[in-house]
């Protein structure tokens, strides 16, 4: 399965602007392998990260505080109550198709919830979890 996922983007080498979640994951994996030779993204580590209670922020102790526990469903911003669309790309095709946008939200939300910037390895794991083999 993993090999299939990595081959896929080559088959769809298409538009300049739009990226796929898998392409983003591959980019983060490549970055991570500089720090950690032989790095392979793990959906399980991503799932654990998504569910972990970092407890850095009182209102937003975990990703799930706003995104809900099921990434195929939406969530609600815990402060403003604004609906948040699903994180999983198969439920929301806009997710992880724009590197700058993904980076912006990782930057903000990692600082807020995790208390620091996320590592490339964590971002790769996160997308591996959210794409869930689809």
């Amino acid at each position, binding site marked *: 399965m993993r090999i299939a996922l990595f081959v896929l983007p080559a088959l769809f080498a298409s538009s300049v602007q739009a990226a796929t979640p898998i392409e983003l994951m591959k980019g983060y994996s490549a970055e991570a392998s500089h720090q950690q030779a032989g790095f392979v993204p793990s959906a399980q580590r991503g799932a654990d990260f998504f569910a972990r209670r970092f407890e850095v922020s009182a*209102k937003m102790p975990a990703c799930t505080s706003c995104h809900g526990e099921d990434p195929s469903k939406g969530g609600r911003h815990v*402060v*403003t*109550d604004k609906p948040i669309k699903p994180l999983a790309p198969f439920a929301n095709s806009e997710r992880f198709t724009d590197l700058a946008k993904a980076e912006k939200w990782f930057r903000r939300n990692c600082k*807020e919830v995790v208390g620091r910037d996320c590592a490339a390895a964590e971002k790769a794991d996160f997308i591996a979890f959210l794409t869930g083999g689809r």
Partner: protein
Amino acid sequence: MKTPYLALTLLALPLAAQADKLVIPAGAPPAFEAECGACHLVFPPALLDAKGWRQIMARLDHHYGDNASLDDQTRQSIDNFLVQNAGGAKVSAAPAAPAEPPRLTTTPWFKRKHHEVPAKDWQDDKVRSPANCAACHTRAAAGSYREREIVMPNGRRWEEKEDD
């Protein structure tokens, strides 16, 4: 706001008369809806004065308990739009603490408009924050704040409150 005359004209516009309709003025940069609207209803710039918006936009990394930081170009485009369309003295708010940005829900105008709202409604789980306009103003997303559109957290229309 180029000339004092125009500034005076804008200040003289009674906010109350426009209160049913609080639309986002034309000329908003694309980032306004995309960035501000990602987490909350895009608030009409007229709800806060220019000083207040500048203070908010200067501290986006400390945005009411959230990190809403932007790259400087985007930040500046939104800042300009907010300041150009900001309200006047009626919607001036002092920050609760020196390091905190002001809240558009603490302006004299906002307080006067909402003084009849019981405390229990503000604290309702469906409301969460006084800035959650759409919790009661059912058409807030369309910029419409008419009294007849208000539905309180208990499901009752605001206009029916006198029947209680």
